[in-house]
């Protein structure tokens, strides 16, 4: 078992694109770590740099207590599951799982025994003699996992492991993956662009954008205290409302007519007239028809049913906000009413730097 420590890691592709740009990250031993970000932000590049499939341009990578910056992929104690699983189509499941052992010159019978044991652990009993082409997507994914863990690696890398599964299977596989990781206690880094997946699975999440790290923290931290407006907008199944505003007379002025209180703990960090972005999650806005102190007047424009709740889009002085309303209380488009923010859950960002204030 081993932790991973990257220092000022840079991967520059020919042509000057920096897939990974000066990334510092420390992943603890046994941790389930997610790399999260939009498409093209460099998640795969970072993962492949850790794997040794991409040569690192500059910086240092330590796995366990060994500097592996220039080590061969096979000499890092790292196993990887690819997005397309990369099973060998000409080998049956047993041979696929046992392939790493074959390279390590384990005897045939021992290989077979290990493969069967690992396959059992991943509920692949009875499939051991099939070819990958005769398996479902979920089964293929488990074979790929089995092949990766068969050699008991120090570090397990997963590139969008769930993205090829349909929605229902993905939820199943998610639980499965979490259990497997807990049982093995293997340091796991997995790439995803699905924030819900990252929040659900990871011990800690690193959010990336354009090759650079935006924030590293527990799911709760990145959800509740995003470092900047990018993370705030990216995390959460309904994106956070980010409203341009100015600080005026100890409150936040949205447009000319509307104002709301400063989030707690920001009072000492703002100055009069500062341009800011006020952030509040749709879940932390309450819709009422009666005016109350701190409420913001709004008009409903669209109503979307989410099942147990309803997502409404409202207009506040020319800005569009989203609000989650419990079912049975939903307003109709055109209704006028008030939004009451849960004061302690609102955030303030500097408009220029986009960093969180306070």
């Amino acid at each position: 078992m081993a932790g991973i420590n990257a220092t000022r890691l840079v991967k520059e592709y020919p042509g000057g694109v920096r897939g990974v740009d000066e990334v510092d990250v420390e992943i603890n031993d046994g941790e389930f770590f997610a790399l999260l970000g939009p498409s093209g932000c460099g998640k795969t590049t970072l993962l492949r740099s850790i794997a040794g499939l991409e040569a690192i341009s500059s910086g240092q990578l330590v796995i366990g207590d060994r500097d592996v910056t220039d080590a061969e992929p096979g000499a890092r104690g790292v196993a990887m599951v690819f997005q397309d699983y990369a099973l060998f189509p000409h080998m049956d499941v047993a041979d696929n799982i046992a392939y790493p052992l074959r390279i390590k010159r384990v005897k045939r019978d021992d290989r077979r025994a290990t493969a069967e044991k690992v396959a059992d652990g991943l509920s692949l009993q009875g499939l051991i003699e099939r070819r990958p082409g005769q398996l479902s997507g979920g089964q293929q994914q488990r074979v790929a996992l089995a092949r990766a863990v068969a050699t008991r690696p120090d570090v397990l890398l997963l590139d969008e492991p769930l993205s090829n599964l349909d929605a229902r299977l993905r939820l199943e596989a998610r639980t499965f993956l979490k259990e497997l990781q807990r049982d093995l206690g293997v340091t796991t880094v997995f790439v995803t662009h699905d924030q819900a997946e990252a929040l659900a699975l990871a011990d800690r999440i690193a959010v990336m954008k354009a090759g650079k790290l935006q924030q590293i923290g527990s799911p709760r931290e990145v959800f509740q205290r995003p470092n900047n407006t990018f993370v705030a907008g990216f995390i959460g199944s309904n994106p956070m409302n980010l409203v341009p505003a100015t600080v005026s007379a100890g409150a936040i002025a949205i447009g000319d007519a509307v104002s709301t209180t400063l989030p707690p703990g920001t009072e000492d960090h703002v100055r009069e007239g500062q341009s800011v972005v006020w952030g509040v999650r749709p879940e932390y806005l309450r819709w009422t028809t009666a005016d109350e102190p701190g409420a913001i007047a709004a008009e409903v424009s669209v109503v979307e049913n989410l099942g147990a709740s309803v997502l409404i889009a409202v207009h506040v002085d020319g800005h569009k906000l989203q609000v989650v309303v419990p079912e049975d209380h939903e307003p109709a488009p055109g209704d006028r009413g008030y939004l009451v923010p849960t004061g302690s859950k609102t955030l303030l960002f500097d408009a220029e730097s986009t960093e969180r204030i306070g």
Partner: protein
Amino acid sequence: MTASTTTPAGSLTAPRRRRADDVAGLGTARAGIFVAPALTLIGLFLLFPAVWTIWLGMTDYRLTGLQAASPEFVGLDNYVEALTDPSFWNSLWLTLVFVVASGIVGQTLIGFALAWSVRNIHGWVKALIEGLVLAAWVIPASVASFLWLVLMDRRSGTLNGLLGTDGYAWLIEHPMEAIILFNIWVGTAFSMQLFSSALSAVPPSQIESAKMVGASGWQQLRDVIIPNIKGHILTNTLLITLWTFNTFTPYLVTAGGPNGKTEILSVYIYETAIPGGQLGLGAAISLIMLLINLVIALAYIRVSRGRKKG
């Protein structure tokens, strides 16, 4: 796909099948009219010469003389003559050596090695190598053979100039080696191109999976690449075998000589039929050659079928 898997209910099977057989709805007679021109052409240019060769092979037809005017039917005499002639067997042996050395080993291995080594190169170096190899393929055979004659010439040949071995007659001392190298040079481009495209179709993640567990270059080749391109290897081997077996171009370099040392089967037939004048015998040997081709092709089909099943 069989009809039963696409038909949801058994009762629908009969009408469906009829429709599937006659997609255009023309009926046999009218459909026949449409394919008649194609069949005529095939018959005229492919079937007729083949049948004619079979017929010729059973006569004593000659290029000149009495039998040229009125050839006589001689049954299987030509075949007996060919198969009992040691020079035929010698020629067959030379062909075998030629096919194995220049086709199967030379072109396939060198073609693969070239495809393998340029696969990670990009830009002008790759274009240059591919261009050079392809050039050897597209240059007309007559020009290519002339280039080799110049290269290997006894007096003032390029090779002798380079090695400082003026006066050494490569084409007389090493005629077989010469035409083998010549044929490799001419034909390698095909294998290289075929393997290049085959290699680019191997999923990179499979190769990387092997790398991740520490597989050496050779192990990646053995466990991932070759199994993935097996079909291409088979196809390439079949085509190369047939082409090399039938090629006549080496004649332009050594003319079958010296002393029959490079008289591969195609050259042997030519020598028998045209300068030798024995068209009947030549036709008979041609047919034997055709049968050998058929056997090779059938063997290939068997192997590739077995591969698909297994």
